């Protein structure tokens, strides 16, 4: 019984164990050891990736893919560098504007994919060009101003616990409850697992798809907001790395690109695992220039591990699509 449930959760357990091991190694190799300061820096970087990975996660869950995640993050980040410089009411309005930017971008993606019926790869490639162009228009060179009190509040620690970890925990709990206990969350899994059955159950494919994209866009907005908190600037050129890493993070976290498989805990573990590997490489003396090589290698290893299930396939027909 326990063995069975272990095997069922293998997609999540392997990255979780890998993450735990690597995190211990990271803390031990870090010259300053385990302290709130070290963990805060690490968690802030990790949080950026967690939010970006969630932006990808909801779209992948309904069997889509979003190549505009990076562009949406860049655009929200640029908007943040204009909107959240003030105090009081204007600050709150600014935060809403940043999150709204992400939400609007994701909603537009959803409209194009679900109503326009354009395959998500090409659709988001095109909308991504529009978003990153807009970001570049708003801020040709990195810069801008961000309320530093807010930034301090968001990126330091509450007692011994980094604020970013609290944020991650909050977002995971919200999403886990939503995915598990609401009709909307279950319909996301339904559409991702079997469009046909979902439609027969009475789930609106179009509405669910649009909602998934919009929710992903909102997460991209959160990521853009948090980047401005960490860097205190807006930069239109940050997009491409986030698109790549968001896909890598969810693949590492055991989310199936075929849709319908994987959960919010996997997203967090995948993103933090990826960040820890990058941080480890930074300290291990490997040339920083070769970093993309190792990022690619980890991604390749992660999906190759996922394909080990092929060894159990008895009927060769099952190897082929459709």
């Amino acid at each position, binding site marked *: 019984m326990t063995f069975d449930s272990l095997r069922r959760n293998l997609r999540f357990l392997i990255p979780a164990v890998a993450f735990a091991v690597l995190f211990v190694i990271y803390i031990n190799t870090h010259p300053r050891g385990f302290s709130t300061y070290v963990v805060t820096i690490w968690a802030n970087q990790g949080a950026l990736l967690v939010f970006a990975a969630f932006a990808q996660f909801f779209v992948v869950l309904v069997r889509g893919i979003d190549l505009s995640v990076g562009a949406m993050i860049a655009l929200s980040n640029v908007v943040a560098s204009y909107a959240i410089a003030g105090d009081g009411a204007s600050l709150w309005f600014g935060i809403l504007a940043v999150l709204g930017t992400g939400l609007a971008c994701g909603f537009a993606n959803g409209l194009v994919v679900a109503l326009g019926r354009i395959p998500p790869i090409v659709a988001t490639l095109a909308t991504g060009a529009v978003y990153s162009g807009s970001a570049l228009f708003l801020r040709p060179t990195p810069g801008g101003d961000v309320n530093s009190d807010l930034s301090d509040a968001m990126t330091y620690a509450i007692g011994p616990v980094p604020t970013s970890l609290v944020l991650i925990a909050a977002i995971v709990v919200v999403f886990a409850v939503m995915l598990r206990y609401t009709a909307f969350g279950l319909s996301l899994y339904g559409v991702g697992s079997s469009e046909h059955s979902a439609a027969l159950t009475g789930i609106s494919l179009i509405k669910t798809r649009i909602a998934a994209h919009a929710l992903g866009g909102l997460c991209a907005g959160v990521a853009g907001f948090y980047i401005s908190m960490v860097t205190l600037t807006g930069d239109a050129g940050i997009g491409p790395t986030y698109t790549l890493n968001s896909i890598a993070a969810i693949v590492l976290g055991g989310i199936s690109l075929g849709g319908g498989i994987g959960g919010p805990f996997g997203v967090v573990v995948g993103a933090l695992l990826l960040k820890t590997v990058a941080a480890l490489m930074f300290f291990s003396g490997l*040339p920083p220039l070769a970093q993309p090589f190792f990022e690619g290698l980890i991604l390749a290893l992660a999906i190759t591990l996922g394909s080990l299930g092929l060894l159990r396939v008895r009927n060769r027909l099952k190897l082929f699509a459709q």
Partner: protein
Amino acid sequence: MTQSIKTLPRLSLSRYAIDPAIFLVATGCIVLLVIGGIVYPSFLSPGYLLQQLQIASFLGVIAAGATLVILLGYIDLSVPSAITAVAVLTTTVGGSSNPEIAVLAIPVGLVGGALIGLINGIGVAIFRLPSMVWTLAINSMLMGALVFFTGGFKPRGVTPPLSITLALDRTLGIPNAFLFWIAVILGVSLLLRRTIYGRYVFATGNSEKAVFLSGIRVRLVTVLTFVAAGVFTAIGAILLAGYANQAYQGMGDTYLMPVITAVVIGGTSILGGCGSYAGTVVGALFITLLSSILSVLQMPEAFRQIVFGAIILTMLLMRRFDRSNR
């Protein structure tokens, strides 16, 4: 028995009908030419148009490989790094002080491209990894390996004379690159329409299972297609290196989006099994004209990206992929 064979050609009659997508993009090209001619009269001069054809050739040759892969129902995101890698490899070998090695520059480049394609193909066909993630990982690894290899500096090397002749020179006033592209167009069209391999590609794109059950070696076809795509990318990279007379970091980065867009707006379904290289050719011309007009209008980079994305989106929406979403 004989009757069933007689009915076969009727099935393929539709291949002579013009795909509405090609018609739409061709109309788009004409509109662009008219706009270009109004805004900037010398846009329509033969010299300028020939130069556009020359530039479109590089895109078109690289997109030939992407067309094959997309027809199979896969996608190759390793194009940018593959272009840079092959260009750096070719110029490095071409810059060798030993003339006997330097001669081998282009063959080595082609083999390099084929190897990248082979790795992509093995991952996708044998290990059944999702092509998008696998080629993305390969792209990342190649990029890292390249930056490490060149130390982050501009790679030193000499472009092989043949690639300069092919990419820059003209025969009877027509750019060699365009003549070469015409040869590629004929070759790829024949390959897709008149050979067994072409049939297999379309069939695999439609239903891999059915093709497997027909006794066709699906995995071999898939690997071969990726190798062919790698070789086309390599040819494009060698031409680009000749055109710029150098290889540099990130020279392929700007090509991923145009290549995929050229294939897709040309009517090839991103889901595979349906489309043509002719569509890609028109798509490549359209994209080249579009970016050339945007630069003639001296639009800032930001607006160029927005307009580029918006126009492609509009063209895709006008066609409305008919994905049977029952």
